[in-house]
């Protein structure tokens, strides 16, 4: 009985396959996490505990029932697995700038635990819900450039005895040294529908919602970075963007990237035969605040994210049923490689030598960015579902 959106059969098809599947996955999560004691914890005295500092790189992800995994990108082996308290939600991860602490969203999007990835020690926690207010964060977590603050976007609903009341979302600021069971030190109202966020070097937090905005977490002042939903392009020429906004990433090159889908009507609006179906993206340099927004890549590939090649910022990679490589400047497809199953998520090492795809199953597949050929394959102990795949550069 699902009716396809009027403007595009293509989006209809995609919505019916990929996107409803992934969001649906979030909605269907009901499994309980096993609460086994952390089996992989080692003695705290042997820090860094088999790990290397000085910029050694680790790929982090979460699997069901609810474990955070640390993968060494040199050996491509799981080095450590930390049990995350509570019910798996969507496996979102944010990493401190020193690469040492991984903040994991759990408890059906409500709770956050900060892990020392060298020994699984929980150094931070917060339960965002309080009294009769249910507070959820969808993906949105970021750590300030100085590592002192953790930001989340909170979506509160007050559960009265016989009705629910939807409240205004807010940016919550936590002191990362607040320890366990900590509460926000400041909150500021923000828009609805914010998913991915990132901290800029100037202290602002990028809010990836209907439009892209930045908020000053000191005083709540908000400015528009770039309008997406409310862009001022002629409606008879362009369909307003549909941003997927599933995973925050770009840490390997210090950027925030948000892909979106749009249609350019070259003839009458609605005339698909003359239209271009396009991927667009907004890319923000977190150091300088520079913003790039273009639509070039034809919408022939389903991807959930783009990851930028550190050696050539015009080159990006995307994954879903296939791994693909594109040039943002020319819109050219540089390569396609079939994958053994669907992978929602993708990331890279800072040297640009390896592409990792993960999510939607229990394997991590590792590829050569040049040829896209598989160069490694890792079986994880559980399903990654919609989990993040993030790069920790350990100082």
């Amino acid at each position, binding site marked *: 009985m699902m*009716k396809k959106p009027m403007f595009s059969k293509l989006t209809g098809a*995609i919505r019916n396959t990929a996107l409803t599947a992934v969001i649906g996955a*979030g909605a269907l999560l009901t499994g309980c996490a096993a609460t086994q004691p952390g089996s992989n914890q080692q003695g705290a005295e042997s820090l860094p505990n088999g790990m290397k500092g000085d910029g050694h790189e680790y790929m982090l992800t979460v699997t069901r029932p609810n474990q955070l995994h640390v993968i060494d990108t040199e050996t491509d082996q799981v080095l450590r697995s930390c049990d995350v308290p509570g019910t798996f939600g969507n496996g979102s991860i944010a990493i401190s700038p020193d690469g040492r602490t991984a903040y994991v969203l759990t408890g059906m999007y409500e709770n956050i635990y900060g892990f020392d990835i060298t020994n699984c020690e929980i150094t931070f926690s917060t339960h965002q819900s309080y009294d009769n207010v249910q507070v959820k964060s*969808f993906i949105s977590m970021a750590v300030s450039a100085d590592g002192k603050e953790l930001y989340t976007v909170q979506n509160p609903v007050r559960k009265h005895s016989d009705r629910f009341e939807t409240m205004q979302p807010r940016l919550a600021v936590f002191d990362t040294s607040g320890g366990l069971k900590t509460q926000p030190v400041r909150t500021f109202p923000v828009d609805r529908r914010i998913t991915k966020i990132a901290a800029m070097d100037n202290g602002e937090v990028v809010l990836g919602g209907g439009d892209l905005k930045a908020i000053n977490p000191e005083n709540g002042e908000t400015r528009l970075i770039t309008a997406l939903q409310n862009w001022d392009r002629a409606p008879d020429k362009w369909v307003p963007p549909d941003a997927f906004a599933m995973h925050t990433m770009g840490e390997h090159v210090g950027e925030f990237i948000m892909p979106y889908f749009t249609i350019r009507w070259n003839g009458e609006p609605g005339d698909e035969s003359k239209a271009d179906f396009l991927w667009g993206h907004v890319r923000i340099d977190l150091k300088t605040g520079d913003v790039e927004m273009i639509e070039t890549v034809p919408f022939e590939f389903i991807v959930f994210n783009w990851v930028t090649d550190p050696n050539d910022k015009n080159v990006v990679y995307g994954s879903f049923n296939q791994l693909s490589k594109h040039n943002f400047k020319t819109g050219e497809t540089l390569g396609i490689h079939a994958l053994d199953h669907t992978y929602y998520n993708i990331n890279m090492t800072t040297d640009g030598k390896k592409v990792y795809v993960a999510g939607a199953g229990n394997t991590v597949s590792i590829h050569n960015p040049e040829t896209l050929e598989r160069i490694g394959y890792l079986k994880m102990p559980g399903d990654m579902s919609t989990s993040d795949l993030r790069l920790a550069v350990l100082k």
Partner: protein
Amino acid sequence: MALKKNKITRALLGTGVLTLAGLAPAQAQAADGESIIRDRCLVCHTDTGDASAPFSRISEQRKTPEGWMATISRMQQQRGVVISPEEKRELVKYLADNQGLAPAETQGLRYVLEKEPNVLESFDPLLQETCVRCHSGARIALQRRTEDEWKWLVHFHMGQQPTAELHAGARDRAWFDIALNQVAPKLGNDYAFNTEEWSQWQAVEKKSLDGRWAMSGYLPEKGQFDAVVVISQNDNDRYSVTLEGQYADGTPISGSGKAIVYTGYEWRGTLTVNGVKMRQVLAASEDGQTLEGRMYQRNDDVMGGKVIAVKNSAITAITPSYIKQGERKLLTISGNKLNGSISLGAGVKVISIIARDEERTVVIAEASRTAKVGSRDIKVGRTSADDLLAVYDELARVEITPSDSIARVGGAGGSIPKQKSWYRAVGYAAGADGKPGTADDLRLGYMPAQWSLKPFDEIAEHDNDIQYAGTIDNRGIFTPGDAGPNPERKMSTNNVGNLTVIGMVQDGDQTISAESHLLVTVQRFVRALID
């Protein structure tokens, strides 16, 4: 008037002046429902002190019995209400009777109650785009609420399904704001709590359905049937039912069970028919003389069809419903209390009567070569039915129903059975203009067909869907493949497929075929009372 009396009763109950003793049966039941609310619901809901809407959140909405059942089940499963099965049944009955929908308010939306598969909905674009994504539009249109109650419903969605505003079709717009400030006010207007239809229906004196009825209908496995249905009232709105009759091929159909009537017309029957558990979702007409709706298998609700039952003298069907110029054929007339001479309209003669009783008459009929093309009214004695029989020159086109359909893989040791789909072919003559596909085409009715499948498009062909997705039999019933990943297929996909169903109808020397789309997809893991 009825409304006023109800208000007073409620007010008095509120003060405790009235006790159960001394009340008429209908009122006794009302008191029961109210005391259940007081005992089970006011832990969280409040007594407003307003006699016209005494219970917060409960008193300002109206819905179908299934709607009330779903809400109370949510109260049990998610809010922790403790209520016995007896009390729950009693409360659903009370709420559906006192805060139900009038027959007119369910018109055009009964498919979702009847669990009819493959209905394509089309609501106002604002509602369709904002709301008809996770469930049917009928789930919404089968409720009546104050604007505030529609608004609380939007808030409920945000708490219950916090990611609702992030799904495809929502995340590209201010979904919550649109739902709260555009959709809810519109619903408060289009589907208002207080309506003329409801006041009128409350004032109608509800008829007992007790009596001997004649039913005819169609079930996909065995086809057209006729039966005598005896309905006996046991208690207020509670009945026992027997059904005895035969399919067109003479196979007996026989069953019995019970039924309950909500809101004065919503018949819900559970019967065992030829050993199979079946449900009836029927609506009684205001005069209490017709019951119409759908009967389907309890464990496989796709497998069912339309039925109609009449208590007075009436003709319900003629099978087949067409006769060609110059043709001589067997026709079965079904109905109730059919006595007297049979007339099949101008140019169609009854040659002989093969079998006859009051519910079913089988005749050999002949249409003259010069009989005018068009539909005929049929008469048996003084009972008549309009436009029931079509006289035609030539079959001009065929349509397959449904035109778009879904089946779901299942079984294979899993807990979810396969969801089949089934098809029928409808024939048309070209009508006066001689051109098929125009407004004056003459509908001939359902015609027997030969059934086959082919890939819907190149992708389906390439992926060899036809080999994996399922098979169709000579009755037009499609059975999908087994559930689970299939290692033989690309990316070990499930036995899903995109197919075209072809129905081929033979009429004399002529063969005409038509197509319909079938998507074979994965199981549905969540099933709702109202989809």
